[in-house]
């Protein structure tokens, strides 16, 4: 067992784990951050998408040894805590209003992929948005309202 040091949602963490333990399991079981979901365990569905130094990755395919010294962002870090409860970030708010989340199981991964797209300066263009979430499967929405939500968050109009 080795101790791995990295940051999650801005907070430093140290985790003792075998180097090949999946980042997904480290997040969900060791750090009790269950917002990140497992859908397939082989990098096809994107439900486990988190940001590694700002880049979207499938956390089921990332061993914790590769995370040493990096910054991991998960869905739990999107909303701002406040005394009255969490305040949704503009992307989450757009999902809520546009109907971008139905069953919600793909939503954390979808939000993180979209967050990376927006943080990289992505705009409301339909094709570019679809490209940015092409690694994230959703079975409920037909993607229409997800694309719409991301476009709203990117400053576009519905």
């Amino acid at each position, binding site marked *: 067992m080795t101790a791995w040091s990295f940051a999650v949602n801005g907070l430093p963490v140290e985790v003792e784990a075998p180097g090949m333990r999946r980042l997904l399991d480290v997040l*969900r079981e060791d750090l*009790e*951050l*269950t*917002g*990140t*979901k*497992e*859908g*397939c*365990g*082989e990098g*096809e*569905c994107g*439900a486990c998408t988190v940001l590694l130094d700002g880049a979207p990755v499938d956390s089921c395919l990332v061993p914790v040894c590769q995370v040493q010294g990096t910054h991991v962002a*998960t*869905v*739990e870090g*999107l*909303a701002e805590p406040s005394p009255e409860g*969490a305040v*949704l970030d503009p992307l*989450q708010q757009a*999902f*809520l*209003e*546009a*109907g971008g*989340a*139905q*069953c*919600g*199981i*793909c*939503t*954390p991964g979808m*939000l993180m992929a979209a967050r990376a797209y927006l943080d990289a300066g992505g705009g409301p263009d*339909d094709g570019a*948005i*679809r*490209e940015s*979430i*092409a*690694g*994230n*499967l*959703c*079975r*409920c*929405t*037909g*993607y*229409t*309202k*997800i*694309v719409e939500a991301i476009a709203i968050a990117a400053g576009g109009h519905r």
Partner: protein
Amino acid sequence: MTIRTPPGRTMTPVAPHRSAPDALVVDRGATVAGRVRPAGPLRREGPAKLTGEAKYADDLVFPGAWFGATIRSTDAHARFDGFDLDPAFDWSRIAVVDASDIPGDNIVSLISDDQPVLVPVGGEIQHHAEPLILLAAADRETLRRARRAIAIRTTPIAPVFDPLASDHVFAHYEIATGDLDAGFAAADLVLEGEYRVGHQEQLYIENNAMIAVPREDGGVAVHGSLQCPYYIHKALKRSLRLDDAQARVVQAETGGGFGGKEEYPSIVALHAALLARKTGKPVRMIYDRHEDLSATTKRHPAIVTHRTGVTADGRLVAQDIEVVMDGGAYCTLTPVVLSRGAIHAGGPYRCPNVRIRARATRTNTPPNGAFRGFGAPQVEFAAEIQLGRIAEALRISPLEIRRRNLYQLGDTTPTGQVLRESVAAAEVLERAAEAAEFEGVHARTAAARTRRAGSGALPGSPLRTGRDRTASGIGVALAWHGAGFTGSGEVKLASVASIELGADGKVRILTGSTEMGQGTKTIFPQLVAAELGLAFDDVEITPQDTAIVPDSGPTVASRTAMVVGGLLIQAARRLRATVEERNGGAPFADVRTADAATHGPTRVDQEFEPYPHVEFDDETYRGDAYPAFGWAACVATVDVDLDTAEVTVRDVVAADDVGRVIHPVLAEGQVEGGTLQAIGYATIEEIKLRDGRYLNDRLATYIIPTALDAPRITTLLVEAPYSGAPHGAKGVGELPMDVGAPAVVAAIHDATGVWIHELPASPERILAGLGITRPVRVAPQPGAVDATIDDPIEHGADPRPEAATDPQVIRGPRDPDERT
């Protein structure tokens, strides 16, 4: 089950008891005269889902929980001779459960008592993923090693894989009306066709998952991903010999269902509960994707044959239809799926002489079960392609032939049901065609096809010329979908929904209806708040926990908004009347707190009462098969690559009549999601089998549409309210699933001239239809793969290397006249 009806017998027609209001197209956020339509409230559980706080089954932590696993057959059909535990392995740390550990009936309780919870030693294995033994351990690594230390002994039995060859019939129906021979005699054209559809996986993104927790009273509480808590409750009581209180089922947040979590979760729950009983500890039974794809239910494959008589001006005069569904190894819900398939088989069209014969048989493949549409998508695909071919043969536009035959108010269906109200077939068809500019686009694509014909290297082929890289096509399809349970199903369910005004003055909804993304937890408070004059946030909804909520029937069949929503409206009206009466007529909203302080809690339990004027005879299959039908039209525009025959679905216009729209955003979400599932069914989703085993049982090989595969979807919500439901709603979930695939296949025909008779419309099938490649059947090589795989669940054979030799039947058109 045999149901035969003498041809020509009809029910006494019932005069329309009210005239149907004109259907109405609803724009998002629009206000309709006479009704208040504020923008719908935000999804109730939305913030929890968006922040990661929502707890799905695998997110729940039960200290000290063990991990469970299922040892399955690797034979499609065999006698289970026994199992051996490797003596070199330390079994003291493992719980092993076999059929002898089941205290009650070794039956997964559903329609027929044919499916065991675990196959007993000496019993017969009916499919390759059949559960035999259960294991549990305190950690995953020990469990993984234990799985490899158990050996299964079997004696193979000859399997049956062809549903046409199987003599074990789960159900069969015959629906007949008019005089078929006279109908064909009057026909100017008789056209035959055979259509095939394969398995489709629901592919909810959250796999099946259950956690069983032992109770001090000897019972068990099960927390999990599910649609129907009371199905599981019943199954637990029967197999574990528990009473109502000892068996408790609690729904965790559920990551999609689509029918795939209607009946299968009973098995997962039973397995987890048996292990919990054995160990005395909570046991987590969380499927991974591979196990979920390998073992759980799929949409029934079907073979549908049509023989249709039609007049020269395109009017249907005779329909002779045979439907054969592959039920898989056990009955599950097959009789009901087949029943819906039989009733919908003719499509939404008037025809005086009809015979529909339907049967479902057993094969040694994993059982098929519920999936959005429930038998209708299979038969409506066939009916629509058949009608498209008729239109082509008669040189009538696909739109026009539908106009001439679609159901109108007062028409009679093959079961003798008079459509007395809420018929919007014409409305949805015209709205979709208009929005998609069908006639104009269709004229242009036809001209382009004529121009291309013969210009390529192959005579008569529309393949690539110097000018065109792709061919575009537009297709239309129309469908109907019976609202709620079939026949007397709703009466038998006798669902209950409740509302409580608590002693604290709070209003709570109690129903067993589950939220799986479709919006139950939002529309229920919305409906009740409107009736009680309260704000949305003033109405709570309790958890779906059998210890708290009544049995509101299963959350299936697009019945939740219509049936249970209707019960809640009735309950709210009674609650309001009771409270206002004893408070001198003061508005409920003003007096509820004071009333609760004075009178204590008030609870209204509303039980389903039969819809007025709806009568169905389950014995003869005559009468009102459904209280009303929803109507859907779809226009799809595709581009077909002229080199590769790859299909891109570019645009879809979907018009769906849902009776009344409760929440426009949620309703649109249902139409959009269902439409994309139908497009996946039409173009890319396919299960390949070898020796009864699914070959592509991973998400890397069973593919579903991504955001880049999805078309732009325009949704038009149409309202033709049903008077029997207090709010007029008819349901929305399944409608779009019925109509997307035939629209896409019609568009492929429009682009290429090829009619695809078997889904999915893969490039291989299109090329074969064009005569570019020959239909090929490569003989499987027995033993070449299986010899090295002793446990497909554990090892997960990747079928990709064998893809080139997969046994694949490509069915092109049966004669050259079928393509232009």
